[in-house]
């Protein structure tokens, strides 16, 4: 994935196993994963990812769902979608 550090963008994980925050933190440190993640206990996941993980949503700067994939759609699909929406967010003064 491209460098998006300076852009109006955030990657948020929702972790679907029934883990406490402590256990999730240990797993993420071990795997060197650096994004912020909800420790979900399966509650949100059962609704949002009813077809299983991985599931991806892209939400625009106004909070509207613009893309959704069940199963990995490939890096290009995600990159293209993000680029389009981030450009739009920047044009409208997103931070």
């Amino acid at each position, binding site marked *: 994935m491209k460098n998006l550090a300076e852009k109006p963008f955030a990657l*948020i994980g929702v972790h*679907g196993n029934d883990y406490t925050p402590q256990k999730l933190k240990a797993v993420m440190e071990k795997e060197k994963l650096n994004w912020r993640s909800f*420790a979900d206990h399966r509650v949100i996941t059962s609704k949002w990812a009813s077809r299983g993980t991985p599931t991806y949503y892209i*939400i625009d700067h106004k909070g*509207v769902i613009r893309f959704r994939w069940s199963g990995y759609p490939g890096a290009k699909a995600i990159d293209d979608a*993000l680029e389009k929406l981030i450009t739009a967010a920047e044009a409208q003064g997103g931070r």
Partner: protein
Amino acid sequence: MKVERLIRYLAFSLFVVAAGEGTSAAAEEKPSTVAERYQALLKEFQGTSYAYFQATNDTERQAIVARVDSATTKCLELVEKNPSDPIALDALTYVVTQEYWLNTHTTHPGWGAESRQARAIALLLRDHVESDKLAETCKRVHFGFRQECETFLRTVLEKNPHREVQGTACLRLAQFLANRVERLDLLKDQPDLAKRYDTLYGKDYMDALKRQDRAEVIREAESFYERAIAKYGDVRVPQYSSTAGKQAEIELFEIRHLAIGKVAPEIEGEDQDGKQFKLSDYRGKVVLLYFWSEY
């Protein structure tokens, strides 16, 4: 030593080939039963999807597609000649599945008006609508795209006397309608795929689907989900670890609140540091929300 081993190996493989020919010649002399022939066809299908995925070049892939094409046709013909054999329902379900796989996962050109899936569904409608063993068939049919799939699910829901089957058909019909709309949406940005759908399912059918009122179809899908909740709430659907009602509730929420174009519902919870946060904290930014888990 090496040469000796090679010769032994060659001798062994020649023996195997000869033995193989021997059995097939014997089989021609004495026709095997329908069940035996069906088992042989199942072996043809075995592992094909994995092998296709693992194949490294087009020649290998084409060989696998040709094998599935031929086995699917033979499977259908076997039932056409022996419609009342106990394997008929299972074999027809296999035909439905294999055509779906060829259409969506391979470069198979499709059968057009000669669709094996359409012919299989015609037989399912003729001979099996009242069967109590249609859960797997409904699942396989609901993955499909053509009109016959919709007709099948509607007919089973209406005419099947078993409440368990009705519940499954009701849920699968809702899913079929919702999936078809979702796939039509995706085709808008993918002209190559749209062309393939025209060839696979017929341009007239595709044009008719594009003309339908999207909101109206979603409403109809919702009404079948609602019916699954109200009438078949306790019916267990074998492919889910829950009931038709529970699954319908999840998918109804998805259609109403998680579809493209909807404002994302709030998520609140703790992060890995135990700190409380909300999805809406990120309003103003583009968010990639990634549902993941470990296996």
